[in-house]
């Protein structure tokens, strides 16, 4: 393709990416290193129903406006918000390190800090859900592909259902099913013979529930991709393998999977990104006492009565960095393969 043609071809996409991806990232970066001005407070008399008048503290608007007009960006704090207790918590980590005797005690204290607690869950979630989604997606794809033509349409539709359901709705349905009075919750109590057993009261079981939900919801995504890949299987290779006496498993292992490998990389990339930003099930399951993630922090910072934009921006930047770190091995490999081919 000529350079000029390429330029006009890529221009609309590049513009959209600049506007909707690059600029917001720059804006988030800037917001994360600025914080609101020091609040100017003063005492005033408030009068409210059923109570009468009391003296309360409020913000001095004239003084605040003057501050804001002088410095509209707020006060520059550098990376202060990144290292405060709500994020990387450097000083708290250092303190925990010097105060604890062994690694166990240090880990306990680390788990008391929001960022590290969230990381423990998010990374577990990502590295359990992603391989399971890929494996389950492949199994469903192979199973559906082996079905009779007339049954395929129906099977595809039902396999896709979890993906079609809005994540929050799916999570809410499961929330009530795993309640200790719900269908699944009661079934588990009956199976374990323990009427007090509660899935939602135990951090471990809640993680299992969230991971199960993650796999249930994303497996259809992997299935669709792999199913599409299966339609391009080189039949001559399969037939050659059959003639050579390869079993069904050997055909899958040595012909089908290598053929689908680029798709596996693709699914892994997308899933790692999505799972690192796990959010809906935590809200849907009301699970924030047991499991948190960076995305949940952003939601929590912006959803409170006092919005913490700088803190949310810092969490967003940390999310971007986290995703970049997780994706780097896959990206480096893809780049190497690309270099080899050219």
């Amino acid at each position, binding site marked *: 393709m000529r350079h000029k043609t390429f330029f006009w071809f890529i221009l609309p996409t590049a513009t959209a990416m600049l506007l909707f991806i690059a600029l917001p990232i720059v804006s988030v970066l800037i917001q994360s290193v600025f*914080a*609101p*001005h*020091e*609040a100017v*407070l003063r*005492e*005033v*008399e*408030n*009068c*409210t*129903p*059923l*109570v009468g*008048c*009391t003296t*309360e*503290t*409020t*913000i001095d*608007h004239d003084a*605040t*406006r003057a501050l804001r007009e002088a410095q509209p960006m707020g*006060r520059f*704090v550098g990376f202060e*918000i990144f290292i*405060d*207790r*709500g994020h990387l918590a450097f000083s*708290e980590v250092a303190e925990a390190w010097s105060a604890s005797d062994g690694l166990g005690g240090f880990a306990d204290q680390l788990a*008391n800090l*929001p960022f590290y607690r969230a990381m423990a869950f998010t990374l577990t979630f990502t590295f359990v859900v992603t391989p399971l989604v890929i494996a389950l997606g492949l199994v469903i794809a192979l199973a559906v592909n082996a079905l009779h033509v007339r049954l395929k349409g129906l099977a595809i539709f039902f396999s896709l259902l979890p993906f079609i359901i809005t994540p929050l709705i799916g999570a809410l349905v499961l*929330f009530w099913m795993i*309640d*200790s*009075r719900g269908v699944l*919750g009661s079934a588990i109590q009956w199976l374990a013979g323990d*009427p*007090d*057993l*509660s899935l*939602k*009261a135990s951090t471990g079981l809640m993680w299992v529930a969230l991971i199960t939900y993650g796999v249930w919801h994303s497996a259809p995504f992997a299935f669709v991709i792999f199913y599409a890949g299966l339609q391009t299987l080189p039949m001559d290779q399969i037939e050659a393998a059959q003639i050579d006496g390869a079993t069904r498993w050997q055909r899958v292992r040595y012909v089908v999977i290598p053929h689908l490998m680029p798709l596996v990389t693709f699914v892994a990339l997308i899933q790692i990104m999505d799972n690192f930003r796990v959010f809906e099930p935590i809200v849907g*399951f*009301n*699970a*924030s*006492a*047991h499991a948190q993630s960076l995305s949940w922090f952003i939601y*929590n910072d*912006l*959803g*409170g*009565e*006092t*919005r*913490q934009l*700088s*803190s949310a921006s810092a969490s967003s930047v940390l999310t971007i960095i986290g995703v970049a770190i997780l994706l780097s091995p896959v990206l480096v490999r893809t780049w190497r393969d690309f270099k080899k081919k050219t």
Partner: protein
Amino acid sequence: MFLRQATLAGAMLAFAGSGALACEISARVSIVGNEFPAIQTVGANAAACTGAEVATNLTADHQSINVPGMQGNPAEYTSAIIANSSIVALMNEDVIRPLDDLVAKHGQGLQQNQLITIDGKVMAVAFMANAQHLMYRKDILADLGIEPPKTYEEMLDAAETIRSKGVMQNPIGGAYAAGWNLAQEFNNMLLGYGGSHFEPGSAEPNVNSEAGVKALTMMKALSEYMTPDFLTHDSNATNAEYRAGNVALLNMWGSRAATQITADGVTEEVKQGHAIAGPMTVGGGSIPATTLWWDGWTVAKNISDAEAEATFIAMMNGIRPELMQDESVRTQAVWLIEGYEPTEDSLGVFDAAKAGAIPYPMLPYMGLMHTALGNELGDFMQGKESAEQALADVEAAYRAAAKEKGFL
């Protein structure tokens, strides 16, 4: 069911009709607010005004959209319906205007206690009051010869009796979902034990105190009588448990009292046995362990004076005294509107006010404290750490947030 909805719709239409006669506006009105029945009524009646467009956006997510929706110039929303907790965010960002001149011009019929006055200026018009208080099953308590509890200690005793007699395994209900709800229950208990959230006159946190530890210890004791899933149950889920007859005692919002037994699927036993009472005290204190709330409306700052006037007129139509003649509206809330005669369902909220319940703190940094409490108390409630450690975590989390927002 259909019949009831049809009657309700009919009643709404009748209001709309009568409202249209009196209410004429000449500029755009746009209202954002929460979505419970009383606010739906106010919104519908404000929207009945003619002459210009009245848009309403009533949603449970109102507090995350009202500030951004009023910061622009001109503001998207000309009025936000808020409570004493959420007005703080609007005050902090300076997006609402003083209403003194509009009250003088169009505010006939407002009662003095409806005017929310901050620093001598009317910043909001309140139309209803709210408080959490006791709801209980009088049939179950009477069967076991238990008096309705007046203190949380009595509530524990009652729960123990109900459990030991085998009537219910988990007789106490509580909106203890980690986050806003759990923090609110702690607020109640802290104030009940005579504690306070901040050092007097400053933004320094003060929850890691004797009262704070006692409050958490009491919450933990109560949670032993709740469903094991309590950390995931908000007030909706807790209400569902009560309505299904699984719970005999709970501290619940007064604004839900009237609709407690009208929902679909409420068992006959619950319908017959439902009763309410004032809020409970704790630890021998005299001030009830609850907070007083009001709901009211504000007018945006960044809009033209014509729009502000139209908004004020429309909102006044939404809370006009004639509405109090209608039985279905009257029972929706503890109204502060002239001509409101308290119904039985309002008893709990009035008792809270009479007993000297403290209003939810209207401080610029209270929202940050509430968020920190909601995030950090879950570990203690699960038995993963001590009360002192949990409260120290709360203070540390609050400090980080307050430093960022420039309060410390």
